[in-house]
């Protein structure tokens, strides 16, 4: 399921709010928030469409897990799907 929006990278473009098929994100006055994590279908499409590699979807579809954002960034895991499909 979707686990993080990286505040450092996110520009607040709101692409993810539109692109998520199950309407998981909400806009705010600032950057979007994960408003309905339970509706996430773990499809990875938000990651593919985020131009800033600011989102991370964990592989566990059935329950939320904790993730270490710093490690994901250090290991280039965040953004790896976009690279794999040739979108970055």
């Amino acid at each position, binding site marked *: 399921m979707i686990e993080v929006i990286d505040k450092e990278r996110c520009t607040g473009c709101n692409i993810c709010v539109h692109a998520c*098929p199950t309407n998981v994100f909400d806009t705010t006055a600032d950057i979007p928030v994960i408003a309905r994590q339970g509706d996430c*279908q773990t499809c990875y*499409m938000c990651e593919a469409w985020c131009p800033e590699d600011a989102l991370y979807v964990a592989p566990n579809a059935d*329950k939320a897990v904790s993730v270490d954002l710093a490690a994901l960034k250090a290991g280039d895991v965040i953004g*790896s*799907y976009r690279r*794999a499909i040739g979108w970055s």
Partner: protein
Amino acid sequence: MSGQIRRPEEIASGGGVREFRTDVLVLGGGPAGTWAAISAAQRGASVILADKGFCGTSGATAPSGTGVWYVQPDPAKREAAMASRELLGGYLQDRRWMARTLNQTFENVDQLARWGYPFHDDGVGFQRYGSVMGPEYMRLMRKRTKQAGVKILDHSPALELLQDEDGAVVGASGLFQQAGERWNVHAGAVILATGGCAFLSKALGCNVLTGDGLLMGAEVGAELSGMEFSNAYAMSLAEGSVTKTRFYDFAEFTDANGDPIPGAQSKGGRSVIARWLMSGPVYASLINVDPETQQAMRRAQPNFFLPLDRSGINPFTDRFSVTLRLEGTVRGTGGLRLVDESCATSVEGLYAAGDAATRELICGAFTGGGSHNAAWAMSSGYWAGAGAASYARTRRVLAQPSKVIRAGKAALIEQSQRGYDPLAVTQAVQDEVFPYDRNYFRSELGLKHSLERLDRLWRKVESADKASVLHVAQSRQAAAMVATARWMYRSALERDESRGMARRVDRPQQDPGPRYYVRSGGLSEVWTRRDLQQPEARVLEAAE
């Protein structure tokens, strides 16, 4: 873009409702819906496409990618392609539809190449014209749909169809999910391209696919066909969502002790795995794959490896626990019955394409996943778009229909009983359709027991008061899933044999008598009927 495009119009707004007028309304923006919209627009129709999610990411194809039934127009190759799955499909296919699907798919794939889809040959046979990457394909389809002049409404689930006094479908009504407003689209024709029903199983991309189009169709009296072919289960990492099954052809399946499970295979031995999963974990490992092939596999299906990499699993050396998730009719073949080559349903003004329609015409009784469904989605979408556009032209004279009737019932009309909790109803349906011993391995007794509970659930749904704007989309989804489960199981009872994916443990044999299709429909009272296969459709068993 040409300057001559007919555009839909917004004719009124206020009080939380926006009204539009268009020639053709397409519900659903996966491959079937986008091809339909483009095809209708190319024929001079104004077109609105409304998607529950986001056209370009939503539906089964966008996050998954698909093999496509793409065969060179060489008569021998085409003949072999048609013959190759007839046995598996229980000879319920129709050669005429297979041939035209092969033709149309060939043209549409060429069109994709001309539009700039980056087809390339990887030399190992995993990529080529015969497969498309989901994100790339559907991003391109969104762009081409917009360029065709189609107005796209995202996050706009359709809730119900609109009819005129004669019963013809003249539009639909839905929700702007993010704004909380309602929309009404008045249209000359409506195409249901809302995909199949996977019961919120979290199979890849499938949680938007809850049978909404089947419910909307049934509410105006449309007939369904092949709903017994609805128990596709697909493999994923136990806790993951990526139900991409092709590479499991390389898998060895083992039990908790690491011993091979006899007869377990992704293809041809999946039921063995399902049985095993009822009592314990099943592990997979992709064996004997050389490094060069491993690299080609990674390039061909990056999404297969994504959850594995992120879980720290090397599938070529490690054993990892797998499960089978229900994909229902998505990789099954049942859906709305089509009555002619324009993909018209049995109700005037209403068309169906892709997984919302029956795919028995090209797949028969066997799963349409793997290549046929993708070919069907683009072909049937293309035909439905053309059919709806020409039908809509005949309706243009009727500027304003005299009276518009809202066809939706469950969760949409005021009634005395309290509204239902959509999550509780969803859970109750899932309890009937997820378990392998109920749906994978069906029996008369099991089906009847499930149907008793499902019928009770439906009576509750049908007599409940309308849902608030906050819950209406979820409530309609839940209603659609209850209805779909009932058509599935009633059809499974009607088919008193095992054929293709519709296996009955108590009727293991295929009936040697005349072949028939199981039609179904109805809501308060579910009905089924057997229609004999027409002689002209019949495929030659000698072809095997």
